[in-house]
Structure formats: structure tokens, C-alpha cells
């Protein structure tokens, strides 16, 4: 198939984007109501609604305080899960907890869907001894203001698009239970700095993934929401087995923050690679400096058009550094290919690696040039 010029593809993308914007604006206009929406159900006042809601059902503090192994608490009106407290909502500081029954009175289907998740299952267990509690409010904050005026913006801690709740407030809620461990370095991580919220990747309100209460059915699909360019590289000739379902981005990266800028799970790039490629760890009698320094000097772990994830075709990859006297520094040309009049092993097949096969390091006493 003949390749499309890049300029054409860019123009096509911009056209699509503009078309989409136009469609969106028409759609948005079409969805605008002709008159302001009534708050709550038609014909009912806020006090009517408040009166119709079921009574709250509290008392988890008592159970927790009765457990000699747990620290006594009195910092919230309900503790739906052992370590969880009801977070304050900065946008509704006067709100009070109303209990899960109150929430479910309106959000019945949400309750059904959320009940299938690990998240709510955990809450249920945490409150099993004391009955249904403020499971919803452990994340969404005290619900009284929301119950009184469901359409009032910011009356509940929201985790979705357009919510008035700031991303920092959202993540603070989640970290109320999930701090430390894998999230020890969330603060200062690139995802935190770019204003991502936990619910950009997770959706604890429905079970959409095998584990991790993800926002999409798989880890890789979640990451590709923003990192499409990276996922596309896995379609190339040489790649790690992400498209084949054998790996996930999170095999190497911890999106919650780590000690490295690219969110690697280990101290360095190489230590991450060595986890699966332990044979490359050595140390070897004879080391190849750029190999020991950083695997990315020669490999692109996300995918490559060359063999074995190399960042450039052989022997050019090697000739970027190896100008040494004699055989490394000759220009290779098509006449040196297998179909040419002067075939040359420096170009054909595995090129330099046919002789320097131990390029990652040699443990042979005659292996200083990785021949052995």
C-alpha cells in the first residue's frame, strides 16, 4: 500500500477534529433544555425530598471503639471500613453524613453496579457487624447537602468530568485509605503534577476489569487513554507482548509514582529490564559500557521497526559509536547485501552481532570484544 504523506494525515486529523467540534457544539445545543431544570423531582420541594429520604443508620464508631486492637476514633460520624473516615468536602463544609441507605434511595442502580466491585464488597465486610453504613460517603463526603439539593454543584465530592471537586481533593480522598505502599511517591509524580485523578484510571463503581477496579477492561486500555502514541509502538515489527495480552504497562511502570521520572518500579532502567532479562545482569568479566549504562541506548522497549527492539538498523546502530580503526568505520552500501556483488557480513543478517554475539557482555577470558 502506498504510504500517505504525513502532511495529508495531519490535515485529515485536523479536519476530523474540527468536524467533531462542530458536531459537539450542535449536540450540546440540542441538549440544552428550553427552561432551567427543576431541582429534584417536579412538584417536590427540597424539604419534601428530605422528608421522604430514609433515616440514617449510623453506629460504626461504636463497633470500632469496642475492638481492643483498633485505635479509638471519634473523628467522623461513621466508619464504613476499618480505616476509612468520611472526608470533609471543602465545597460543603457544613454537610453531615446521612448514611448509605439515604444515598441508595436515589442511587439504586449505582448501588447494584457498585456492589459487584471489590471496593464496595470491602466496605460491606468492614461494616458487616454494624449493618449498612456510610459506604458512599466514605468517598463522596457527607451527603446531607446533596440530599437536600441534589443539583447543587459541589455539594458532594465528585470524581467525574465536570465535577467541581478539585483533583487534589479527589486523590486525597482515595489516599485516605490507599496511602503508602505502591502510592508512596504519588506526590510529585508526573501524573499528580499533570492533574490526574485516581478516577481517571479507576472506576470503583463498577467491575469492568478482572482486577484493580479499572476504568476500562484492561490495564493497557487504561494507559492508552492518554498514551496512544506509546501503545501504537507495540504494533511494530519487534515489540514486547502487550498486544498479545502477556504483559501490561504496569509490569514495568508504576503509574502511582516512583523514584524515577518515567515511573519505573526499580531504581534504574536497567534494573527494570534485568527483572525479566536476568541473564543480561551479569556482571560480566568484560562489560560493554553503553549496555551497562542504559539499555535504552540501543533498545526502545515500546517497539521498533528493527530486530530485537533496536533503535536503528544494524550496523548503523553500532557505527554511531564505533569508528575505530579498520573494519567498523566503512560505509556499507546495497552492493554489500546478499543480493549484491560484494556481500559483506557486516551488513547481512544479524550484522555485527554475528561475530560480536555476546554484545551484552562476555564472561569469557578471550571475550573482551564480545566474540566469545
Amino acid at each position, binding site marked *: 500500500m502506498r504510504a500517505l504523506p504525513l502532511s495529508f494525515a495531519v490535515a485529515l486529523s485536523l479536519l476530523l477534529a474540527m468536524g467533531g467540534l462542530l458536531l459537539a457544539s450542535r449536540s450540546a445545543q440540542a441538549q440544552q433544555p428550553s427552561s432551567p431544570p427543576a431541582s429534584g423531582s417536579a412538584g417536590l420541594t427540597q424539604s419534601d425530598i428530605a422528608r421522604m429520604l430514609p433515616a440514617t443508620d449510623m453506629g460504626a464508631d461504636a463497633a470500632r471503639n469496642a475492638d481492643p486492637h483498633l485505635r479509638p476514633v471519634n473523628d467522623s460520624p461513621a466508619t464504613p471500613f476499618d480505616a476509612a473516615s468520611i472526608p470533609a468536602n471543602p465545597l460543603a463544609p457544613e454537610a453531615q453524613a446521612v448514611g448509605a441507605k439515604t444515598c441508595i434511595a436515589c442511587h439504586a442502580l449505582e448501588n447494584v453496579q457498585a456492589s459487584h466491585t471489590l471496593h464496595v464488597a470491602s466496605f460491606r465486610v468492614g461494616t458487616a457487624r454494624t449493618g449498612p453504613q456510610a459506604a458512599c460517603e466514605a468517598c463522596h463526603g457527607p451527603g446531607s447537602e446533596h440530599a437536600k439539593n441534589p443539583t447543587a454543584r459541589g455539594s458532594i465530592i465528585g470524581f467525574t468530568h465536570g465535577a467541581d471537586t478539585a483533583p487534589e481533593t479527589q486523590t486525597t480522598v482515595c489516599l485516605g485509605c490507599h496511602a503508602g505502599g505502591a502510592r508512596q511517591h504519588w506526590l510529585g509524580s508526573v501524573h499528580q503534577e499533570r492533574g490526574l485523578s485516581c478516577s481517571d484510571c479507576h472506576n470503583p463503581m463498577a467491575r469492568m476489569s478482572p482486577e484493580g477496579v479499572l476504568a476500562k477492561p484492561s490495564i493497557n486500555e487504561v494507559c492508552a487513554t492518554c498514551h496512544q502514541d506509546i501503545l501504537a509502538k507495540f504494533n511494530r515489527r519487534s515489540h514486547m507482548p502487550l498486544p498479545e495480552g502477556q504483559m501490561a504497562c504496569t*509490569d514495568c511502570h508504576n503509574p502511582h509514582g516512583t523514584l524515577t521520572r518515567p515511573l519505573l518500579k526499580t531504581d534504574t532502567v536497567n534494573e527494570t529490564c534485568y527483572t525479566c532479562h536476568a541473564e543480561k545482569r551479569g556482571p560480566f568479566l568484560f562489560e560493554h559500557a553503553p549496555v551497562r549504562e542504559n539499555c535504552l541506548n540501543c533498545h526502545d522497549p515500546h517497539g521498533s521497526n528493527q530486530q530485537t527492539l533496536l533503535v536503528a*538498523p544494524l550496523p548503523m546502530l553500532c557505527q554511531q559509536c564505533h569508528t575505530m580503526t579498520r573494519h567498523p568505520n566503512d560505509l556499507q552500501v546495497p552492493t554489500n547485501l546478499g543480493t549484491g556483488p560484494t556481500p559483506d557480513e557486516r551488513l547481512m543478517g544479524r550484522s555485527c552481532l554475528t561475530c560480536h554475539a555476546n554484545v551484552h557482555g562476555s*564472561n569469557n577470558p578471550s571475550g573482551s570484544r564480545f566474540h566469545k
Partner: protein
Amino acid sequence: MRAFNPISVAVLLGLCVGWSVVAAASDTSGTMRVGDMQYGNGLDPRGWTPLVDPDADGMSWLHAGTLRTPSGALYPYPNAPLGDKPLAPGSDWTYWGLLQLGYIHLNGDRNAEFFRQYTDWKNGAALGLLAVGLNNTKTGSYVEFRGSRISSDDQYYRLRAGRYGSYRVEAFYRDIPHTVSTAAYPLWNGVGGTNLTLPAGLTPGDSTVAAVQQASRDAARREIKLTRTRTGLSVEGGLYRNWVGFASITNEERNGDRLWGGPMFFNFAFPSTGSPYGGNGGVLETVRPIDFTTTDVNLGLRNVGKLWHFNALYTGSFFRDHKDYLNYQNPFLVSPVVGVPAAGLVTNGQFSLEPDNDYHNLRLELSRELTWRGELSLAAAYGTMRQDDDLLPPVNCTGTLGFSAGPLQQLIPCADWNTSAALSKTSANARIDTHLLDAKVSFHPTNAFAWHADLRYYQEDNKTRYLSYNPITGQYGYISENGSQGTVVPGEVGIFDNGYYNTSNVQIASIPFGYQDTLFELGTDWNPSRSNTLGLTYTYDHDQPKHRERSRLDEQRIKLTWSNRAVGRATLRASFEYGDRDGGKYNYDPYLAYYSASLPGYVPADGIAPTAFTVDAMRKYDMSDRKEAKAKLIVLYPLGETSTLTSTFYGTRDHYDAPVGRQNTSTTGFTASWDWQPGPQTTGSAYIGVESTHLKLANVADNEALVDEPGGENADLGGPFYPLENYWHDLDNERDYNAGITFAHDFGRVRLDLGWNYTQSLSKMNYDYASPGALTHPEAATPDGVGAFPNNHYRSSTFNAGLTFPVVRNVSVRLFGSYQSGSFLDWHYLGFDDTLVYDHRIYTDEGPQLHYSVTTLGVMLNVKL
């Protein structure tokens, strides 16, 4: 199915039994450990798709559709309930399950390398998915199992059990295939083992080229592949109050083979002159065995308090290679260039394969909340990599190699070198230690302003020392290329002494590369409005490499970021980064101390200084001055209530201050995708992506006539040895195009899903040169001094279709098919479909198929348990 490693199982059972579990808040540590986060396969990459069944009721009675992530992407519709049923009347346990079992049939080029790269497709029965869950709603206990099997080399099974908020135990078994080549024709016997021997009809060291060609033609086609068999067990849970611990052990058996090499000195320099024995040297593409065992142990302990967060992690990794060496026979006659017969035939070559190694890493992390919504975070880690494998002797030859011709008495008595007594020490005793210190402080004194500072220090200390010295002969150095180089070229055995070889400049010791890196970062975030965040980060990176061309590298980087949620309903994230790297004086030959020219007794040949190691204008790209600019824009735009447009624009520009070496690289690309879900019954998506990359390098061919002659010591670019007439460039251009479409609709009686994925990569290598002197064969030069290689390309197109329809209650059938086609060209393999033997070169891998198409058809029975 392979057996579990008994030691691993024993250790983990001990861990499980010994784990004292108390009810406390706990959290999983999966994203702290490398690997095994994903269980899927080519049949179902998600490992979950049969359970993706959008619930017609949707997510809420209060609004249509689904909500969006804070950034604007639509959440999918929730899946229909898994249908928990009581395990027994009155039981607190409920269960759900799904069994998907069926048959797969392949048509077409089923052995195409790119079709089976990471999937071991087979005709026959397959377990699509077995997923079972048990829950106890009163105790919070649960058990979950998932498994799938395409073949005995492509399967996974994972069991998780535990109690919410208390503990979790996990065990898994998986086989991951990796096919490297499906068109390999190794002519040796013993492939898969450590001793490759020539077939009947070939004489080691004395075969004609015609005989080798015939042996190659007679060689059977085989796959080069390996399988990773991983087993693991982990346990995690609350220990006491806020203390949470985890322990895991995984064991991997990696078995198979890979393409490898086999040097017997150059062939390009010695083309055949018509002799039936061909030219000289030997270049052999062999096959090596893969027989690895890696056992990893991870232990963790953490405490999460209201103010303090503590984290301790230990990682141990123990690699064992059950094949220490690869011996291979050489069929070709290797002969001296001085016109005398060799003292003996060069018949055998040898590689040391990777040594066993042990790795330990202990990391301690401590964070404390501070005033102004601040946090102080400290981390320290110590790691060590060690191996002490017995060393092989320098050669495995017997008899005498080399030659004797008048004053050239270049004989290599193998008995002096094929024994471990020829080593300065008998085991490697290699070790690299690493140290990491990291301190970070961040504050958010107001809602509109935040800043952070980070100081990181990392050191890699290579303690390996090896001297290439033979106590038997009193000589330094080694026997190069199994004795072949010393058999061909006078003075190039690879050894140094104060006698015949006193002019030989060879490496005589290992070089303990290492580095220490100190990085300081200062950053601030400012929210000028509720919908805008601006960020500015300055980074200073001070790197001190050991035994490299530079002893100091300094890089300063500025990064600007902008996040915006005010343009319509879109979320924009833009960043721009600029980096400038320089450093200390560049020494183009820092390795002199590790070469025999530094030893007493070294005598320059004919009084001429040693030939220049390399050209002085060379700048290795990890050591050169560099200016780098990166830009990226990610836009998520909600289109109406049912779709999302996502687009990414990105580019990188790198300029290296290198007259010789990598000079610049650039990448420009964009992606756009549209996700659409008008209702739970219908979903669709479309995707396109384009990327363009360029890489330019420069090099200069030396004037080989001056090797060991006056002028050969001159390293100046433009000097007699590296003349500007021999200067040349390579320019690699690559374009990648990706597209994809998916559509699924539930018609009620039948659910249809369609998908198409397309990738095309085009690569073009151009070159130019100042004069024919840049080429090995000047006669290939063109008048204009420019040229190009044939375009490489890789194209893959896969169309998938599936129909799922219920048969009876809880039973449905899925019919599916896929058609994958592709084409490929890589000039490295041009001509290999005609012959794999070129003079004294033997190739094993014919390369991936140039065109292929495969149809996969399958039927699966889905049974809800």
C-alpha cells in the same frame, strides 16, 4: 504442563503457613513489583473479554449513558452482573463462573513468524477462559480463579484468595511463548544443546564451499523459539495495626534456543579467488540454547500512619544458566595471508554463555506529612549484583594453530591456552554495587501554588577486576576469535609479550565501567484559575562516568507544563521541555591503561606509535554535548454525551555536537481516536496514528593503508589516517501508520463484534559520502556520492469478526474468525531465500516471511456456571 519448582513451592507454602494474619486495613503491592500484572493471550489479550457484557440497565436510573473520567473519557457501561448464586442453601458463600471452551482452526501461512511471535497458535481445542469466583459476604473472604489455554506453551492459570481488608494469597502458573524465527535452517547437529557439530559430508576446518552450501540446502527447516514458564506464589496482609507485609516468590524456567554467532575472522576482506575452499575467515550464524532458571523473591513491609509512611522492600533475584558454553564446529578452511599453510586447522569455536548471578536490593522509604500540605520523602537503596562462575579456558582448540613463515613464528600451542591453568584466576568474582539516596520535599501552601525540590544520588560501583594474563606462557592478552585471527594475520593473535608479540597492542584487563549521578530538581505549579495549571521544573543532572570518554556530564533541563479544562469540555495537557547537556574534556581514547601499550616492554612497531584507536572527532551519543527539545499535547474532547475524541501531538528534536557519531534525531507524530458508546448495546471506536522519525549519523573510514605505518597514529579528522575524503553520512527515515476500527452491537438474539487493526512501517536508509574512499569496495561508488538502501517495510492487517448468540439459558455460542495478512521486507535478509551460504559465511535464519495471510476460525461454547 510443567512441574512447579519444588523449592519455590516449599518456600512459599512456608510463607503462607507462617503468615500471621490479623484483621487490619491492607492494600496490594502489585504495582510495586515488576511483572505478572497481566494474564491474557492472543485469543483474548484482556483475559476478561468473555465477561465484558454491558448491562442493558446502564449505570444509573438518574441519567442516561455513563459518566466520564475527570479528564473527559467515557467510562464503559458496567457489565451485567456475574450472577452470584449461593454455594449451598443457607451458605454465606456465593459463586459465579464462566467456562469458555472451543475449537480453533487455522488456514493459510500458520507458521508465519509475525503471526505466531507471541502466540502459540495450534489447530485444536482451546480453553478460552475459565473464570470462577466465590465470595463470602459476611466474612469478606473470596476466591477467584482465571485460566486459559491455547497450547501447552501458551497458557495461564491464576488463583487468588483472601479476605477483603485483611490478607491475600495468590498463586499462578503461566507459559509465555516467543517465536524468534520460523524459517531457520541450522546446518549443525545438536541444535538446542551446547555442542554444535557438523553434519556428515563436512570436515571441520577443511570443507569446500560447495559442500557447505549443500549441507545448508539439506538442513531441515525449524523454529527458533523459547518458552517462559513462570510459577509464583505471594501472600500479603495486615500484620499488626498499621503494619502490612507481603512476600512473593516467582520462578521462571526459560527454555528454547536463539540465533547466535560464531566468528572465525572476517570474510569480507578475503573474497574467494576461485578455490573450491573459498576465501578466508569464517562468519557463522549459529543457534544457542536457552536453559535459564530465575527465582525472584520479594519481601515488603510498610506502615501507613496519619503522619508517617514507611516502606521497606527487599528484592532478591537468582539467575541460573544451565548451559555454560556453546561449542561449535567450523567447516571452513582458515589460512594465513602470507601464503604458507596453517599449522593446524581451525575447527572449533566457543562462547561463554551468561553466568549465574545473584542480585539483592534493599530499599527503605520514609515519608512524613508536613505543614502547608507538605511532605518530606526520603529513600535509600542498596543493591548488589554478583557472580563467580568458573571461567572457561581462553580457547577450546587442540594441537597447534597459527603459522610459521621465516621471521613470522606465530604458532599457537593450544595446550598452553586450553586449560584453566592459563587463566590469571579461575572464577570471575564479578560484582557491581549500587547505592541510591533520594530526598524530596513538596509544599502546597495555597490552593493556587505548590513547589517541590528533589535531590537524587545514584552510584554504580563496578568491583570486577580481571587481568588477561597466562601464567603458563607469561603472556598478556587472549587468543582472538578462537585462534582464527592469529592464523590469518601476522601479529594479530591477540597476545602481548616481551618477545615476538612486543608490538601487539591488545586489551589486557577488564574495564570497570560505572558512574555516579546526582540530580537536583526544583519545580513549581501555579493555578492562575480553577481550570488552568502551569508548571515549571528545572533539573540539573551531574553525571560522573568512570573510565569513559568524559569524566563529567552536566545537563540542565527546563520543563513547562500547562493543563487546561477551560476550552469547552476538553482537557488539554501540554508540555515543552528543553535540555542542554555538556561536560568535561572529551577523551576519545580513555582505555589506554587497559591495553598492552601501557605495559613495560611494549615496543611500537618499526618505531611507529600505536595506530590511532579512533578518530578524535568521534562523540559517542551518550557522552556528547546535546541539545534536546520535546513537546507534547494531549487533548481529550467529549463529543456530545456518547463519544470522545482524543488526540496526541508530539515531537522531539535532539542535536548532538558530534562531527563523527550520532548527529541528530527527530520524531514527529500524532494520534487521534474516537470512542463511541450510544448505549449499552452498541460501542464503536476508530483510531489513526502517524509518526515520522529521522536519525542522522556521520562516520569516517580510516585509510587502512596507513595501519602500522607512519600517519596511522594520527587521530585527527582530516588527517592522513582519517581523511575528510572518507567522510560519510547515514540518514535513517521511518514512517509509521496505524489505524483501527471496532464496532460491537447487541441485536438481542445475537451480539456482533467487528475489529480491524492496521499497521504499516516504512523505513528508508539514505547515505552520502565524500569519495569512494569511504567504501570497502570503491568500485561500487556512484558519481554523485549518494545512494539509498531498498525500502524496508512491515505491514500487518488484521480483521476480526465474532457472533455470540444464546442457545439455552446460561449457554451461548461464539463463532469468530480473523484474517491476518502482512508483508515484510528487510534488506538484511535479501538473497537469503536463494542461499544461506556466501563464501565463508553461513546464515541460519532466512528471515521473516515476505508475505503471509492466515485465517483463524473458531467456535466457543460459553457456559455460565
